[in-house]
């Protein structure tokens, strides 16, 4: 048994659990803030059910955008391009692409939610949905960009592979911001 265990190396299940479970506990604690924000907004969600439809995307999409950028940045660092020069055109291309993706996806989300609204009966107009989705979404994209840069840079400085810890932490922290911003913007727009 001991021999087969050692030949498995990093694939041994006890070892995977031991390495990962503590990180999962920390991440759950972080995302719990998003959960409390959501439960606190229960009245708002009961009044405007369509907002609940948008919640999973608002929570997940910032993390997705951050993950795309972090993966590209960490590849850059692995390839030896470790300078973050504000005149670097390649960096700006990455940032502008993320912002363009965010604008597209969050516009599509508002339109999708508007169509779903016909089926579940909603009083929210397309203009209101676009405003809420784009203001929250673009703010979130900026936060995702800032955190991705900071995390990739810090983990490179500390010699940690970003894939192991940095990306999960960044995506979960950005999830929390997504929820707080979305509920905050919705509350302001709808006067709650």
């Amino acid at each position, binding site marked *: 048994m001991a021999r087969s265990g050692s030949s498995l190396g990093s694939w041994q299940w006890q070892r995977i659990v031991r390495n990962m479970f503590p990180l999962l506990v920390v991440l759950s604690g972080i995302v719990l803030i998003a959960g409390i924000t959501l439960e606190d907004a229960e009245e708002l969600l009961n009044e405007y059910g369509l907002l*609940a439809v948008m919640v999973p995307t608002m929570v997940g999409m910032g993390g997705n955008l951050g993950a795309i950028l972090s993966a590209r940045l960490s590849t850059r660092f692995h390839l030896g391009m470790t300078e973050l020069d504000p005149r670097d055109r390649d960096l700006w*291309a990455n940032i502008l692409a993320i912002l363009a*993706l965010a604008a597209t996806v969050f516009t599509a989300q508002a339109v999708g939610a508007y169509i779903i609204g016909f089926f579940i009966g909603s009083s929210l107009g397309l203009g209101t949905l676009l405003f809420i989705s784009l203001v929250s979404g673009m703010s979130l994209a900026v936060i995702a960009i800032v955190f991705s840069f900071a995390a990739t840079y810090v983990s490179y400085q500390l010699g940690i592979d970003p894939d192991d810890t940095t990306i999960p932490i960044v995506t979960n922290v950005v*999830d929390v911001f997504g929820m707080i911003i979305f509920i905050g913007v919705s509350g302001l727009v709808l006067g709650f």
Partner: protein
Amino acid sequence: MSVREDIWKIYRESLPILFVALGGGLFSGIVLEGLTDSVERFPGLLVMVPVFLATRGNVYGALGGRISTGLHQGLIDPEFEYDERLVNAVIASLVNGIGISIFIGFLTWLVLSVLPGWEAAQLVELVGIMFFAGFLTSFLMIVGLLGIIFAGFNYGYDPDNLVGPIVTTLGDIFGMLFMILSVWLVGVLL
């Protein structure tokens, strides 16, 4: 390449994946809208939703990443057959996925009981909902994730590009569906 061409390339490569995630997110949002009616009965239910969905991504994103690296390195074969590495990776994801779900139920109950002005459902109710939801989602995620990664790999797709969108979409949709099922189940049983 000009900056404009660079932007267009990144945009074009990433947009389909994000649209898949958007579709999954909106569908699970419809399920969540149905779940908000049960909050009166189980206070703390909405607290667990984002945490539960996030851990699906964390646990099965890690499993997918590991399998995809294993396939690239030739350490595992893209088939459903007994393989010690594959079995260990799957057991680890089951222990992590179900274990952290139980922990989420406990943590939610603890935090809401301590915070002034908040109320929580009974510990056994919150943990029960998370246990059933975590248990059912884990089995479906493992079979779905491995099936799609193996099929994709055999057809010549890079599994690295498949893992993210599969995990997000399957996790969102089935995480919410199994959560609503678990709420019903716990309501009937307890």
